[in-house]
């Protein structure tokens, strides 16, 4: 329970966890919060670009749709996309990193050089190119993000496995005749799990941001989806007069990403005190 106490003393991390919890709750109960589900997709054109009021808390956009309803419903999409992308990246990156870290030779070299190439190109640009190649749509954006995000996990796991591989307990298990898959998945993986969890948490926020950028550039979600990035792109022509249609989706992105980053940083401090940021 010492670890919990230590965590609770880290105020930014607790704040991050709080934000994540609220965002997840909003996503889970979105249909209950937004009484009229139709308001997400259909608006009254007469009500277009209305400023925030008692009726429309966040105002309305250029098609007269309720921005509040769209931001709330957009939470689901954002979390779902981030979760899918991070999960896919873990599924590809972690076994690749385990294998590359544990073995020496051609297989390991090839995996790590491919990883290096991916890491050398900015993820966003690579994802843009891949998503463009695969055609417009949320699926191709997700695939492009997963395909460009796994090298981060691969690199992290690789470094950790290299460290653990020479630990005496691994050698002892080899001496006892344990199989390589047993050593890797039952012993090495739990010992390298904490940096994976930390990276995944920070990666959630990062992916939400990248998805929003893809949406903004018209590569991710297609209209009339309530995607946050797309909403900003659609409403930016009406700046600065109708500031609300851009500001509220933007704030949603900002707060969610901030939450994941604060929580991820706090986790990292718990797991590895040597990396503790100075404050």
């Amino acid at each position, binding site marked *: 329970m010492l670890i919990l106490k230590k965590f609770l003393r880290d105020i930014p991390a607790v704040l991050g966890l709080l934000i994540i919890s609220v965002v997840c709750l909003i996503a889970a109960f979105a249909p209950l919060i937004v009484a009229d589900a139709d308001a997400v997709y259909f608006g009254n054109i007469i009500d277009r670009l209305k400023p925030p009021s008692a009726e429309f808390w966040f105002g309305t956009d250029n098609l007269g749709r309720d921005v509040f309803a769209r931001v709330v419903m957009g939470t689901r999409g954002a979390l779902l996309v981030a979760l899918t992308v991070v999960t896919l990246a873990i599924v590809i990156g972690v076994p690749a990193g385990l294998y590359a870290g544990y073995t*020496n030779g*051609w297989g390991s*070299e090839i995996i790590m050089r491919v990883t290096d190439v991916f890491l050398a190109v900015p993820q966003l640009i690579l994802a843009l190119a891949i998503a463009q190649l695969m055609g417009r749509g949320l699926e191709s954006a997700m695939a492009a993000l997963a395909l460009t995000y796994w090298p981060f996990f691969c690199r992290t796991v690789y470094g950790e496995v290299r460290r653990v591989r020479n*630990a*005496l*307990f691994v*050698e*002892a*298990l*080899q*001496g*006892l*005749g*344990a*199989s390589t898959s*047993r050593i890797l998945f039952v*012993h090495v993986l*739990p*010992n390298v799990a904490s940096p994976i969890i930390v990276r995944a948490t920070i990666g959630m926020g990062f992916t939400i941001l990248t998805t929003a950028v893809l949406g903004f550039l018209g590569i991710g979600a297609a209209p009339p989806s309530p995607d946050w990035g797309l909403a900003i792109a659609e409403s930016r022509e009406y700046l600065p007069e109708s500031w609300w249609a851009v500001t509220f989706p933007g704030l949603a992105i900002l707060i969610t990403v901030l939450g994941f980053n604060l929580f991820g940083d706090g986790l990292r401090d718990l797991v590895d005190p040597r990396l503790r940021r100075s404050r």
Partner: protein
Amino acid sequence: MSGNDAALLEIEDLVTEFGGAKAFLGKPQRIVRAVDGVSLQLKPGQALGLVGESGCGKTTIAKTALGLVREKSGTMRLDGRVVSGLAPKEARRARATVQYVHQDPGAALDPWWSIGHALDETLRIHGISDKGERTTRIDEMLRAVGLDATFRTRYPHELSGGQQRRVGLARILVLRPRIVILDEPTSGLDLSVQATVLGVIDELRQRFGLTYLFVSHDLSVVERMCEEVAIMYLGRIVEIGPTKEIFARPQHPYTRALLAAAPRLEPGSLNDTPALPGDPPSPTNLVSGCTFRPRCAFAAPKCAEARPPLRSVGERHSAACVRLEETGADTPA
């Protein structure tokens, strides 16, 4: 060096090399001959001490015997059956009756797993699927090493140094090995704990009829525990024989220097100790002839000519030095 009773483990002219692998787009690594033509015999129930400076190849011999490191050449016979020249996995399987206790048994346990879990896994790896049998064996062995069953739920970091050694022993003894290789079983323990751990090791040997290969640099421990000693220097055995013989009449200049360097409890005994000059030479860059030559007080031109073979200097006692007669070692008549 042939005994009358059949040897349980026989190692002949064993050579183990490291390096030589070609890195991706790189130069081949330098070859290091860690073990260079070592022959040993372990008789059932015997304890053989392997003594030498760090880096002399003691641990490599142990790992080669275990099958973790592949031998370059030489033969190994276990109970009369040849177990050398096999692929690593088969070699390990063929040598399942040989087990190894690590120098630091605490670090040899996965920090995430409790002792019981780790011991249980050891048995599962070796194909004992019956849960009841595993539990009985673990409890029995924990008691045999002087721990009680409550240690099953403890984690490695919660144990003291002595308890970790005991767990390290229990961990391999559950597999019912015949030969146990003990790597520095007392290093890092204070003297009283050392004594108890050595007591446990000795008792287990009687109780389970074990044969020990005792790797150590602590001469007093070896003197106490082993019937025979082999002194190693840079991958070669320079002197081998019964412990009493070697401690009473060391022949090789290196053995003599080692024994003289061992701290004694007499006041002023350190003052007249002939210290070994210099560091052990690098095994990547060996000198010609006798490898001990650069540090030997008795080195002569003829030492550079050829590698000295082991010659008999007494009953089952041999040393590898060409100048034994001239160095004043009291050779028996």
